[in-house]
């Protein structure tokens, strides 16, 4: 009896290993990668343009009407992207849509933010650094302490690995005074000194209210932004820019993106929805990019099989919209063949930067593979315990491999 359990344990391990590796090997061998277009919006012709790589250095440059362009012509269509080259060639237009243009103006008035799945909830050590927001120097000075935000706020001295009581107390008192309720649910900042100035931290407190915390001349400066508690915040991205239009972004639990504007923390909703089903932004699977240029703003939602682009004017009115599609992975021949062959797949890859075992089933197509596996077992070796068939019934070709490799001992 125990020998049988032992044999089926081995078969089970073989099933697990095959389900982890074989579907990936199959894709690696047979899947033909599709070339995805890179889409953009040209303010010169007021239309969408794109490039598509064909390998071996071949590249199509087209607009969506079907006209094709040479490299330099294409650069001229996208002055906000290729302004450095255009400036060098003396081909940068003097004004676009009534706005004066130069390299300097473009550089000053451009800003890019992107939210990819790997930034949604990354595995981070929950320790932070607080810059001096109004320091005496041109660049931001990196402090010499770190702080933790949790049940309280505590500054730590790395040299002695101990709490800086006085500074911690000062911040705790300031936060409690304004009505901040510990413990902290979420905090976000742009923790780099490669930025023009510092806007500190955006912190969600226990009541789901959003606070803005900075350090000015060594003193805490905390403001209740008035955002929340009805907005379910999933993540916040802070992005300081001299344009001072917005502090950053909020990604909500229901996959909506909002700008936190400098206008008294008023939120501005960014359109990321699409009329086509499955093409509205979902943070766990798709990437959203937000480009700000001197005359307009671009939003791109990129997922498996599509790139949905929305162009807004500077007052956030929708100007144009276009979707480019390509064959998503699930509709490619290799993937379809795979779903018939393998009843399920195990994966440890997680786009959110974790290692996570996930199981995906391929029913009902997989019934074909299961039936074939059962027939194969019947043909190749007939005298089998009934449990072998049951295993193959549930695990298809994975079970077949295990059952055929590990023969029963009488």
């Amino acid at each position: 009896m125990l020998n049988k359990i032992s044999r089926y344990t081995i078969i089970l391990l073989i099933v697990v290993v095959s389900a982890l590796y074989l579907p990936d090997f199959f894709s690696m061998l047979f899947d033909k990668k599709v070339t995805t277009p890179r889409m953009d919006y040209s303010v010169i012709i007021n239309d969408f343009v794109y490039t598509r790589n064909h390998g071996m250095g071949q590249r199509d440059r087209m607009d969506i009407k079907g006209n094709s362009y040479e490299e330099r012509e294409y650069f001229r269509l996208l002055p906000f992207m290729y302004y450095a080259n255009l400036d060098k060639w003396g081909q940068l237009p003097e004004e676009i849509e009534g706005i004066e243009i130069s390299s300097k103006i473009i550089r000053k008035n451009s800003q890019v933010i992107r939210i990819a799945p790997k930034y949604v909830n990354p595995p981070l050590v929950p320790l932070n650094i607080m810059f001096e927001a109004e320091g005496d120097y041109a660049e931001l000075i990196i402090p010499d302490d770190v702080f933790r935000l949790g049940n309280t706020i505590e500054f730590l001295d790395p040299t002695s690995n101990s709490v800086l009581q006085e500074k911690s107390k000062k911040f705790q008192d300031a936060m409690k005074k304004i009505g901040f309720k510990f413990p902290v649910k979420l905090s976000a900042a742009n923790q780099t000194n490669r930025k023009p100035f510092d806007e500190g931290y955006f912190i969600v407190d226990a009541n789901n209210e959003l606070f803005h915390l900075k350090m000015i001349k060594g003193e805490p400066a905390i403001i209740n932004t008035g955002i929340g508690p009805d907005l379910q915040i999933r993540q916040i991205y802070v992005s300081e820019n001299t344009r001072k239009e917005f502090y950053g972004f909020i990604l909500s639990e229901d996959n909506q993106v909002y700008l936190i504007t400098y206008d008294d923390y008023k939120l501005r909703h960014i359109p990321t929805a699409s009329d086509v089903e499955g093409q509205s932004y979902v943070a766990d699977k798709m990437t959203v990019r937000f480009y700000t240029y001197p005359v307009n703003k671009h939003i791109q939602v990129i997922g498996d099989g599509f790139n949905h682009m929305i162009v807004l004017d500077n007052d956030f009115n929708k100007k144009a919209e276009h979707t480019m599609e390509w064959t998503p992975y699930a509709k490619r021949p290799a993937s379809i063949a795979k779903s018939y062959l393998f009843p399920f797949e195990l994966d440890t890859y997680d786009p959110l930067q974790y290692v996570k075992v996930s199981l995906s089933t391929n029913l009902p197509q997989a019934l074909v593979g299961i039936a074939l596996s059962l027939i194969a077992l019947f043909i190749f070796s007939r005298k089998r315990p009934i449990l072998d068939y049951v295993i193959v019934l549930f695990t298809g070709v994975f079970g077949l491999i295990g059952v055929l490799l590990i023969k029963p001992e009488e």
Partner: protein
Amino acid sequence: MLKAILYKEWIKLRWAVIVIAGLTVLSLAYSASMINYYVEFQGAFQNWMYVIGKSLLLKNIVFVKVLPLITGLVFALLQFVPEMTNKRMRLSYHLPISEKKLLLSSVGIGYIFLLAEIIFLFFGLWLVVSLTYPTEIVSKALMSSIPWFLGGSAIYFMASFIILEPSWTYRIIYGIMTYGLITKFYEANTYDQYQTLWAYILIVAVMPLTIMFAGYRFRRGSK
């Protein structure tokens, strides 16, 4: 009978247990001195930044990653290679104890020694890391080490199983399977990335069961 088996396995493992314990102390000392070196070299604050942002600590505690793996493999080799040379295992099968009990208790006793080494390493790591870093980093480091300990346990069970298996064809099949499983415990590139640890624990927990099949095949002289 169990006491006799315990004594027998202890005789096979005692030098390894002592040597590995020594190596554990040495590698913890190495980690501690590496951490100190980086703190001196980078300055405490900069070092913390590298540890938080660039996973520097994983590099400094690299022996915690490999030591359980080596220990598991060495214990399995020391316990079961002597049994398989000249088919000495046949003698054990004449003992007044069932073959299953015999195998499971041998593996169980070996695993207790391995677990003791792992626990020693775990607490050593705790001590070394908490000397320099705050609880946030300590807990991340400890959580990161759990898949490595599971990997060490997995290699012990699978290596014992492969050694006991009499046929080379099966050994190769099991070897490929083991490689596929073991690599899954070492996929992290930053702290505490494993989300579904229960699945990994479950896989390791069923592994000791495999050994009975090999023992049974050995007794039957299957090829």
